């Protein structure tokens, strides 16, 4: 695949209560954004395991984005706290590995923040495009 043909593959974990609803709201409002992301719905951002990021990137996914409720708003009290903490370690690991830490990101979008969903997605997709294909994909 040449540089020109490359299109990023981006996996977005959305929690059911806030960010998935926010994503829906963005749709209802017809807010346009890049196509390169695919949403995987989980009930809570606390369901996210950093291990998923390894599995995804190893198989050629270029960026992993986790969206949850804002801190304090978690439908399940503290699930997003755990997600955030796991992410801290994951991000540190990326730095040591020499993989751009921006390939993985966690952020918060509430059910009413369709506009914010559009904004964070657009920005993340643009950033991954800038970074190019994941160096963890392909090969070993």
């Amino acid at each position, binding site marked *: 695949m040449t540089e020109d043909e490359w299109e990023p593959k981006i996996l977005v974990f959305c929690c059911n209560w806030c960010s998935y609803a926010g994503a*829906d709201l963005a749709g209802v409002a017809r807010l346009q*954004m890049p196509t390169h992301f695919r949403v995987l719905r989980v009930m809570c951002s606390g*369901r996210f395991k950093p291990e*998923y990021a390894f599995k995804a990137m190893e198989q050629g996914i270029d960026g992993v984005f986790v969206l949850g409720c804002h801190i304090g708003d978690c439908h399940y009290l503290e699930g997003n706290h755990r997600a955030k903490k796991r992410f801290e370690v994951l991000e540190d690991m990326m730095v040591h590995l020499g993989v751009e830490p921006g390939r993985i990101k966690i952020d918060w979008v509430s059910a009413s923040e369709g506009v914010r969903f559009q904004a964070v997605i657009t920005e993340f997709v643009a950033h991954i495009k800038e970074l190019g294909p994941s160096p963890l994909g392909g090969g070993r």
Partner: protein
Amino acid sequence: MRHDEEPRIGVFVCHCGSNIGGWLDVPAVAEYAGTLPYVVHSEDNLYTCAEDGLAAIRKAIKEQDLNRVIVASCTPRTHEPLFQATCEEAGLNRYLFEFVNIRDQCSWIHMSEWDAATEKAKELVRMGVAKATRLVPLDRSTAPVELVAMVLGGGITGMTAARAIANSGFEVYLVERRSVLGGLLNRLHKIWPTEESPRQLLDGLEADLEANERVHILTGTEMVDLKGFVGNFDVTLMPVEGNGDGLDLKVGTIIVATGADEMKPDGLYGYGEVEGVVTELELETMLREGNLPEIGNAVFIQCTGARGQRVTYCSRVCCMTGIKNAMELRELYPEASINVLYRDIMAYGISYEELYQRARVKGVGFIRHPKEEPPRVETGPDGKVRVTYRDVILGRDIVQDVDLVVLSTPLVQHEDAKELAQMLRVPLGQDRFFFEAHVKLRPIDFASDGIFLAGTAHGPKDIEESIVQALGAASRSLTFLKAGQVLSEPIVAVVDEDSCIGCGNCIEVCPYGAIELKEGGKRGQVAEVNPGLCKGCGTCPGACPSSSIQQLGFTDEQILAMITALANGGD
């Protein structure tokens, strides 16, 4: 955990009229779905959620012996129960249904990218198929509902809702943090169109409530803690002032009717700086208490702080309030010149337009100013208030010294609403009002079951609308109370006792104390989930180093299959 039979998957791709079909190639998505592993049937429908679409699902389940169904259409947040029920009608366990959202999160947000949106829809379907292949039938369990409701907020909305619930035979706690019931109505002078005193309205309601032994009125009280879920909330209430004893309640449903506040427009149009500048509510108080100054002329300034000035929204009720009060002043001071300065007048519906016309007939002046040039208010000579405004029709600035400037400000959310929202684990919208589950389909519900909203806590509303919504919320609440039990989603955590070592990570992260250690397993101790307490957040599998605890419906196997399907283009 694998379902025994070989999967036979049916995929139904919805055009949603042109909502999906107009922006991506639905037939191509359906055709592609047919090529995926284990997919034995695929079709596209104009509206899968319409009766003929549902009939097609039922038919295919029967004729094709489907044991998994996927609908690729809108969002599970609105339509999943419908399709699940359809599967059940055809004899298929409702958890063998998988939803793929290709509208809200695809066609609607990629309206100029036909090819890419089509490709994305295919990939989303592929991920859905990967998950569906690994779905297993699950059973919902029931839990009893505490036959008690709680209404937060003792204004007209809360009182109405409480009365309706009590009249239907259920206990209800009405919690108001002020010392009296009535909320904002206590501060109004007259209410339109009956022109009666709000007191009359409130007194009648309050008498009803006090007379009903099923109603427990708790004024001067606020909620400080909330645990549990629909049917079984644990509420802790405390007196607002003093160190009185708290009260722990068990309630089945909650209605949020905490109302709103009038915006204090500090710094706008001389408010707080210039003598003689008041808000509508302050005017109503003066009217009620009869301590108005002599007025020769007065000016109302509409949209103060609203529609982009301080808040973005139109507060809906301020036009009526301003017109109503202008007319009252007009009646009190027939000689006075009363002018309403406005950008747009919103006199919606049947009775309000009539009110507006009547005000004009009675000689209230309505003067339009451009949005870009709001009136200026300063201290004028002789203790009067000098108002300078641009008259659009005259096309020039007018300077007027008046006795009173009344600012029509919007209703705003309470300062501390966020705390309450977090306690309830329900969202606030961008304007900080409580945010409903779905604007059209679930306008009284929150996304969280068992909590409903009504009145101005939801956004600016007049009394009539608040009462309507109060009755709606009461009725939604009664749906649960009358059922007496709730079906719980079976997406709970389960432990593999062969691999669990009882390290306790899951116990540590469970927000509901739903996991405990018991004897057993290879290490003599294993985690055990109480499915009644587990709410299915899935935080525990995220903390298990050996994947020994899984969330049904969101297992590692299912999620990994979706990831792989996305990455590799297939199994």
